[in-house]
C-alpha cells in the first residue's frame, strides 16, 4: 500500500510539473493567441540552469554551485524568460505560422546545444545527481513523496491563482482583445507587440520552471528529454483540456500524463522485450491520433473557454 501511495504521489507530482508548463502555454496560446512550438526548448533552458545552480560541482559539466533549490528555480524562470524575450522580440511581430516555425527551430537548436556543448551540459550523458527537495526524508518514501507533492501543489496553486487574476485583469482583457481583433485593439492605443511579448515571456518562464522542477524531481536530465515530443505532449494536454481555461489546462495535464503512463505500463507488459523500444513509438502514434481526434470531435477541449469577450463578428454591409 505504501508503495502504491508513494507512487501516486510521484505520479501527481510529475503531472503537476507538466501542469505548470501547460498553464504557461495556455497564457501564450489560450489568452494571447501566440503559437509556440518550442515548449521543449524553454523547459530545457530551465532544467539546465536549475541543474547548474543546485548540483554539486562535477568535472563532466559546467556549473555545480550547490546553491539552494529555490534559487535554482528562480534562476530557471529568469533564464527561460530571457530566452523567450530574445526569441519573442525577434519573431512576435511576424505572422502566427512564422512564429510557430521559429519557436520550433529555436527548440531544435537549443536541444542541439544541449547535446553538443559537452563542456557546459555534459553532452549526451546530461547532468546527474541533481539534488531533490526534502532529500533528508528520502529513506521514508511516503513522507518524501508527500512532501514533494505538497511543494509542487503549492507552487501550482500559487501560479494558478496568479494567472486567473492576471487573465481577468485589464491586462488579460487587452490580450484577449488583441487575439480576437488586433486592428481594433491597436486602435485603442494598446501596443500589441508589448502585451504579446509580456505574455510570451511569462509563459516561457513557467515552462522553464516546469523544466527545473522535473529536473529536480527526477534528479537527472539529458538532451533526449527535450525533443519535440515534449512540446507535443504539452500541446496535447492543453488542447484536450481546453485552451483558454486554466482549469482545463491542469485537467488536461493530469489526464494526458495518466494516459501516457498507463499506456507505457501496458505496452511494457504486453510487448516482447525486443519490441519495447518500438512500443514507445506506438505510444506516440496513439497520442498523435488522440490529438487529431480531439481536434476533430471536440475542438474546444474537455472544458472550453468561458466566454469573456463578446464576438462582434457582424457583417454590416456588402464590403464585409
Amino acid at each position, binding site marked *: 500500500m505504501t508503495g502504491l501511495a508513494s507512487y501516486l504521489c510521484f505520479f501527481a507530482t510529475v503531472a503537476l510539473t507538466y501542469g505548470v508548463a501547460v498553464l504557461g502555454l495556455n497564457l501564450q496560446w489560450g489568452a494571447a493567441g501566440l503559437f509556440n512550438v518550442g515548449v521543449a526548448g524553454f523547459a530545457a533552458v530551465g532544467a539546465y540552469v536549475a541543474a547548474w545552480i543546485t548540483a554539486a560541482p562535477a568535472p563532466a559539466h559546467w556549473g555545480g554551485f550547490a546553491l539552494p533549490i529555490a534559487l535554482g528555480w528562480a534562476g530557471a524562470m529568469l533564464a527561460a524568460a530571457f530566452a523567450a524575450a530574445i526569441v519573442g522580440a525577434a519573431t512576435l511581430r511576424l505572422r502566427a505560422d512564422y512564429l510557430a516555425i521559429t519557436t520550433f527551430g529555436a527548440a531544435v537548436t537549443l536541444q542541439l546545444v544541449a547535446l553538443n556543448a559537452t563542456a557546459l551540459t555534459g553532452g549526451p550523458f546530461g547532468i546527474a545527481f541533481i539534488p531533490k527537495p526534502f532529500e533528508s526524508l528520502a529513506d521514508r518514501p511516503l513522507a518524501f513523496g508527500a512532501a514533494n507533492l505538497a511543494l509542487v501543489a503549492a507552487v501550482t496553486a500559487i501560479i494558478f491563482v496568479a494567472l486567473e487574476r492576471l487573465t481577468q485583469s485589464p491586462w488579460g482583457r487587452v490580450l484577449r482583445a488583441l487575439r480576437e481583433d488586433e486592428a481594433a485593439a491597436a486602435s485603442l492605443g494598446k501596443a500589441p507587440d508589448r502585451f504579446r511579448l509580456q505574455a510570451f515571456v511569462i509563459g516561457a518562464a513557467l515552462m522553464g520552471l516546469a523544466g527545473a522542477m522535473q529536473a529536480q524531481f527526477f534528479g537527472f536530465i539529458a538532451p533526449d528529454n527535450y525533443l519535440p515530443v515534449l512540446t507535443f505532449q504539452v500541446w496535447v494536454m492543453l488542447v484536450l483540456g481546453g485552451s483558454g481555461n486554466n482549469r482545463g489546462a491542469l485537467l488536461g495535464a493530469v489526464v494526458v500524463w495518466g494516459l501516457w503512463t498507463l499506456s507505457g505500463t501496458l505496452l511494457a507488459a504486453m510487448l516482447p522485450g525486443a519490441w519495447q523500444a518500438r512500443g514507445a513509438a506506438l505510444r506516440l502514434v496513439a497520442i498523435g491520433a488522440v490529438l487529431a481526434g480531439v481536434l476533430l470531435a471536440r475542438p474546444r477541449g474537455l472544458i472550453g473557454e468561458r466566454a469573456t469577450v463578446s464576438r462582434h463578428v*457582424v*457583417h*454590416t*454591409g*456588402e*464590403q*464585409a
Partner: protein
Amino acid sequence: MTRLELRGLVAGYEPGLPIVRGVDLSLAGGEILVLLGPNGAGKSTLAKALAGLVPVAAGTITLDGASLLDVPAHARIRHGLGFVPQTHNIFAALSVAENLAVAAAILPRAARTSRIGAMLAMFPDLAAARRRAAGLLSGGQRQMLAIARALIASPAVLALDEPSAGLSPKLVAMVLAKLREIAVGGVAVLLVEQNARAALAVADRAVILVEGRVAHEGAGAALLDDPHVAALYLGGRAA
C-alpha cells in the same frame, strides 16, 4: 426572352442576417439591367449570391429555366453565368494570356485558341500586353481583362460588380460602351453600379435596391428623369 430570373431571393453572409431580403428580377438576352442603390443596400451581395459566393437562404435563381441554387460556384460558368467581381478580379501573378487560358480551360480543347483569339480581337489593348503579368496592367486594362476572362466561355448572362470603380470618366465610358457591344451580341448583362448617371445612360432598365428590397424599377432613361428618384438616389452624383 427571359434568360435570368430571381424570385424572392434572400441571401446574406450569416444565417439569420439577410442582406438581400426578397428580390424579384428578370433579365432578357441582349438587355442591360442596372442595379442601383445606396451603400449597404445589398447590391454586391445579390451579385455574389448569383455567382454562388454568398449563401442563399430562400428564393430561386433560374438561368434558361434551370435552377442554379444547387450548382456550386465553380460550375456556374458552365451553366452560362459569367461574373466579374469588383476587386481582385484578375490573377495578378499570371500573364494576360494565362489569365485567359485559365478561364478557357473549361472549353473543348479545339475551341480554346479561337475563343482566346476572339477576346484579344475584342480587346486590342490586351492583345498588345498578352505576355505581361496581369498585375502590371493599368486600371482600365485590368477591367477589360476581367471582362474578357468572364466572357471567354460565352456565358448567357454576364454580371459585373461595379466595373467602373476607380476608373477615370473616359475609361468608364469605354467600359460601358463595351458592355453595350456585348449585350448587342445577345448576352444578358446585369450591372451593379454606384456610378448611377453613367450606368443609366447605357442601361435598358434599372432597379433601385434599398435595404435589400426593390424600391423602384423602370426604364433607364425614365429613372434618370424622375426628379423623385434623382433626388433620393442620384443626388450626390448629379453634375
